[in-house]
């Protein structure tokens, strides 16, 4: 029996993915549970494993954008089945093998056929489409030969047509009153590089805009002594066994934030329609950039975990982030975010809330500074805190009170006990 390889839905909002590569050429044998293809969404990359042992028959070339549930290829049990597949889904084997990750584009080409690059290759061949899809395509003058089918056996169904109708086509006619092209002059700007806004960049692009567009964000800034936290960290790390994960400032911060959130639950909330939803769970995310753009893995129920546990989990999340193996679950569903720009020598800044959360804490560097204490100038390690919150639902005073609770715990970590 031929097994279909389809694009799994990896999260509630996932609709499409990029087929990055095939692990096997056509006709090669894949073992059961072995990776057969790699896909990448705007959040994660995911290895599709073959449910069965058999001969691989890729249909969609690597580098193509594919839809959830779309069939991208098949696994044949034997050569005979492979031959049938070749008849039923003819593809130019050469094309597939040559296609590679670095092929430019990777945008869903609404007009390109799913199986091959040569448009119109379905001429004379039977196009499998539902009667409703045919009728809709006719009504909208769409060429069925150019539409990828996601129904059983690659059949074109209503949803495939709807998808195309819903999305603005790239080939859409340009606006009539097109601005006149600027005259060529020595002052005209020339493009050095065009970077498509897509993938993680697109998500960041949209989220940042959504956040600022939706919330009334207010940032409060303060500075506290980092001495207590430094001592605390050193004391613990000195007594740890060499194979135990050392605790980081971030881990202490996450714990302190989580405990402060418990005392100020309103900061741990989201707006949902006409409702402020104060969350029971405290899931603190730590924004990080591992070279692929900004991601925010979460420490779940951070208020209930020890600093050691948090440090260990953070270590694992960072490793996973570097290897690009974070699951969507590890990236979604936070209630508060911490972002640390200390490594870049930044003190104060205005972080943007990680929507739909309602607050974010920015950490600056720890730096020694002169500080007046009991009328005397002393040298003390200091750290800047910047708290941005949604002023629609959190008033200034409660926001400041949250920050106050937090600063006390940072200055005296024993308060976390």
């Amino acid at each position, binding site marked *: 029996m031929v097994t279909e390889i389809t694009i799994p839905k990896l999260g509630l909002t996932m609709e499409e993915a990029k087929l990055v590569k095939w692990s096997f050429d056509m006709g090669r044998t894949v073992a059961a549970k072995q990776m057969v293809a790699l896909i990448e969404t705007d959040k994660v990359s995911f290895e599709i494993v073959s449910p069965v042992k058999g001969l691989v028959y890729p249909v969609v070339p690597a580098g193509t954008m594919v839809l959830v*549930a779309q069939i991208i290829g098949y696994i044949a049990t034997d050569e005979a089945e492979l031959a049938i597949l070749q008849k039923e889904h003819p593809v130019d084997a050469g094309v597939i093998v040559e296609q590679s990750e670095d092929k430019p584009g990777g945008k869903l080409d609404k007009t390109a056929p799913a199986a091959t690059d040569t448009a119109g290759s379905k001429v004379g061949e039977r196009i499998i489409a539902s*009667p*409703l899809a045919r009728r809709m395509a006719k009504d909208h003058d769409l060429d069925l030969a150019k539409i990828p089918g996601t129904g059983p056996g690659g059949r074109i*169904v209503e949803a495939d047509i709807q998808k195309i109708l819903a999305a603005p086509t790239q080939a859409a006619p340009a606006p009539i009153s097109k601005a006149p092209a600027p005259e060529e002059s020595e002052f005209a700007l020339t493009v050095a590089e065009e970077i498509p806004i897509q993938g993680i960049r697109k998500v960041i692009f949209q989220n940042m805009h959504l956040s600022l567009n939706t919330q009334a964000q207010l940032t409060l800034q303060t500075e506290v002594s980092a001495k207590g936290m430094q001592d605390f960290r050193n004391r613990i790390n000195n007594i740890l066994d060499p194979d135990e994960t050392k605790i980081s400032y971030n881990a202490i911060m996450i714990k302190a934030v989580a405990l402060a959130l418990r005392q100020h639950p309103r900061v741990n909330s989201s707006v949902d329609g006409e409702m402020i939803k104060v969350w029971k769970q405290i899931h603190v995310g730590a924004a990080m950039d591992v070279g692929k753009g900004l991601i925010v893995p979460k420490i779940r129920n951070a208020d209930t975990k020890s600093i050691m546990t948090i440090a260990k989990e953070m270590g694992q999340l960072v490793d996973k982030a570097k290897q690009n193996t974070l699951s969507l679950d590890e990236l979604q569903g936070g209630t508060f975010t911490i972002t640390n720009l200390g490594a870049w020598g930044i003190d104060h800044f205005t972080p943007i809330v990680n929507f739909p959360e309602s607050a974010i804490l920015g950490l600056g560097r720890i730096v020694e500074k002169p500080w007046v204490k009991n009328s005397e100038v002393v040298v003390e390690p200091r750290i800047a805190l910047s708290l941005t919150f949604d002023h629609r639902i959190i008033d200034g005073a409660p926001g400041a009170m949250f920050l106050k609770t937090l600063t006390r715990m940072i200055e005296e970590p024993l308060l976390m006990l």
Partner: protein
Amino acid sequence: MYDVIIIGGGPGGYAAAIRSAQLDAGVALVETDIIGGTCVNRGCIPIKVWLRAADTLRRIQGAGDFGIRAKVEGIDFQTIVERKNGVSSDIRMGMEALLGNYGVEVLKGRGVFKSPGEIDINGAVYQAKKYIIATGSRMAVPDIPGLKDALLTTDQALDLQNLPASILIYGAGPIEVEMATIFCRFGSKVTLAAQTRRLLPREDQDSSQRLAQALRDEGVTLFLGQKLESVKPVGNEFICSLSGSKNPTITVEKVLCAPRLPNTQNLGLENAGILLDEDGSVRADDFLQTSVEGIYAIGDVVGHTMQSHAASAMAITAAENAMGQSKLFSFNLVPRGAWSFPEVASVGLTEEEAENQDLDVTVGEFPYAINGLAMSVNEMKGSVKVVFDERYGKILGVHIVGPNANELIGEAVVAMQFEYTVAELAAGIRVHPTFSENVVDAARDALGWALYLPKR
């Protein structure tokens, strides 16, 4: 460690177990009671035996129309109950044998989640890579003063050796309607009251109306849009007070009601972090996955259409997804059925629902009254109604009242599944004379060219 553990051995759990095993999973099926669940032991199957008995009586009573003079000497309810038990146990034994045949391990006991990855069965802890929750539903007795003493559950009703002389059936769902059909035919004085304004409120208004008329013709008294306020004993009977301007009271021997609630309690859902929807059912997405990855839910416990075929269809999707596929479940293709005289069945949107979705709605309709077979066999109540979108001819819903409605609705399910437009349905050919011709004729009416209806 199993690949899949399924909790509940009703039609949902059974189908999920077999489908998982077909995909080479190591499967355990947990069941506290007996295999077959509500459907086989206390639901669909038992009530069909009773309905067949009632229908046989109905045909004998109508035999005079065909020149056959027959007299019913008596009804031996014990034989009905024994036959019912026999059929249930035959089906159950068949299911048990097939589970064994597929190597499914049946674990006796109540399954309770200890964590997202472990379940406890009688104190022993089991683990699986994936779980499928198929715990079904239970009867939820409404909180009405005095109701308890007068209550007859469907479980009890299906085992009755003597039928009450009078009964109030409270509720307007398929189970209540079928119960009213049975009791009425066997001579009980039946009153059906419900809070909803119409019978089968989930169905198209036309279906509700046709069914209401049919039940009245059978002799059922209907009180719709009225709430049962209280039940008070008087001697061997009960006085039931309904709300409403006239405050009617009804005196009966028994009150039957059958509302059902998803079985989500004592299941450790909270230990696994599985979330419920507002209506108390387990929340499942279109892949039938719950809020916890790797844990799926199917059948009555997820609500929607609480019928057996929904459970077993969901089972296939959930089992395939548990085994690494990613299949979407088409909730809109789940048909609904009730076995009254005449039957009521449907799939998709009602006319009203379609209109509320701002679609360009048109309907086609064909009555049984002018169908050749219906006239020949003297079963002329009912009609087939096709609701479709004018723009592309997309079939949005089909609503059938009439003999064999539950068989005929399969045609509509196929048509909608494969996205036939109303034109393909109208172009069909059926054996003559059959009730199935009605489906084609309704589609032709939708397009304005039904051959057996007056010119439009």
